[in-house]
């Protein structure tokens, strides 16, 4: 093989690998959950606001009162949300935009809003959401593929 051809081939492979690596970073999807729940951390209690409206990509994804949870999906690590906070019933609303760097290795991320608004460390207000497998999904029998002769995957006709 000519040196030039080999060089171009290796170059093409490197470029494709680089694009794939970039896609893996910028395309990482996360499900972000917003918890408007009281947080106890290092012996201190962080109370919930009366109402929080969460906007992601200019779309309202949650309107949360005490002990409520909302959810949004996000692609990438730089999560941006706008919070419309009402501290007390009948009080004024304050609106602010926040940015959070999401951990790459977590699929589902729970953000505790009182902890986040209090300016705590990320470890304090971010936890991983682990879905609990229900009985139904663990015992569910999936119909496996067979072929045109009626032979299923276990070999039974």
């Amino acid at each position, binding site marked *: 093989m000519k040196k030039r051809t080999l060089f171009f081939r290796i170059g093409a492979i490197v470029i*494709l690998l680089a694009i*794939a690596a*970039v896609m*893996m970073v910028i395309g990482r*999807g996360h499900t972000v959950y917003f918890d408007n729940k009281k947080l106890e951390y290092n012996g201190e209690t962080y109370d919930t606001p009366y109402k929080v409206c969460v906007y992601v990509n200019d779309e309202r994804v949650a309107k949360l009162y005490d002990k409520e949870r909302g959810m949004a999906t996000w692609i990438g690590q730089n999560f941006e949300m706008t919070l419309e906070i009402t501290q007390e019933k009948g009080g004024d609303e304050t609106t602010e935009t926040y940015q959070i760097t999401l951990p790459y290795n977590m699929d589902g991320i729970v953000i505790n809003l009182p902890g986040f608004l209090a300016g705590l460390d990320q470890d304090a207000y971010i936890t991983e959401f682990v879905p609990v497998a229900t009985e139904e999904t663990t015992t569910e029998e*999936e119909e*496996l*593929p067979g072929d045109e002769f009626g032979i299923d*995957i276990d070999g039974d006709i």
Partner: protein
Amino acid sequence: MSKQVKAKKKRLTFGQFLANNSVPIMFILFCAVCIPISGFSPSYLLNEIVTRMGRNTFLILCLLIPIMAGMGLNFGMTLGAMAGEIALIFVSDWQIWGIPGVVLAMILSIPISILLGAFCGGMLNRARGREMITSYIISFFINGVYQLVVLYMMGSIIPIKHSEIKLPRGYGIRNTVSLLNMRQCIDNLLAINVNGVKIPVLTFILIALLCLFIVWFRKTKLGQDMRAVGQDMEVARDAGIKVERTRIISIIMSTVFAGFGMILYLQNMGNLSTYSSHSQIGMFCIAALLVGGASVDRASIGNVFVGVTLFHLMFIVAPAAGAKITGDSMIGEYFRVFISYGVITVALIMYETKKRRNKSMAGQELAAAQKEEAQ
């Protein structure tokens, strides 16, 4: 005298036109009858056609390269579709969403497609003259390997993390994998709405790029080699063209594009039917291409667009027309299935008949020449 010859020539040309385009003409007539009966509005039909054109055209275009190389209709495109599906399973498990997910799946599908294409091309070189049936059977063989990988190796040997993808037993992939997070991400980006008809501009740009690539590729050295191989292998070999290598490259290219096409197809659908998405894709793409007026040894980009329009127009109107005429929508459903297979059968018969006729005409001409020489 010359006027008579001209008129005869004109008649022959019209006759030839009818003979060459009998399948599309038949489909146009069929659709012309069925559209008013079905009762669908023009905007609905247009919307459906545009959606299906965006979904299927890329896949059908990948059939053109092997035809150019004289390898007939590549039923082995299913191999590329399987490569695309495997890539999508990985991307789905790694939670790469949206357009980056689609791009990553395309990149991941390339090595798998190249491997499968090289294998298929090598096999077809050993079965010269019987490429179509061989590629058809290879697709069944590789489907078995695909099931082995997806059903037994994924989750046990090949790491799969998410339980939503895995079967409840802990290994193997579920019947359906959700692609909701990348659903229509390509179609919706740059999409425009014209009188209620959604036009997926980016998808059409990708299709246009592939068309341009095919047009450009025909003019390259490799493209010319493929055409030469397609016309006569022995002459091409005598001219110094590496026939076997050229044929393998054509199948590899077709398989890689089929992988891309399958990813575009599935991002439009929004879910992946793990064990059946690919099974009929080759058949329907080939049927669509033949409906567009292509044959086993001749196909153009125009045939692809005419074919995808007519074939899918029939797909949309036939069940509704069948339901209106007979009161049973299943009649239309059966009709469109048997039409798909029927079109392929008729095209293959026409190709063989034409080949034999040409052969016998050449024989007769040779005999006449020898007779003349003897006199």
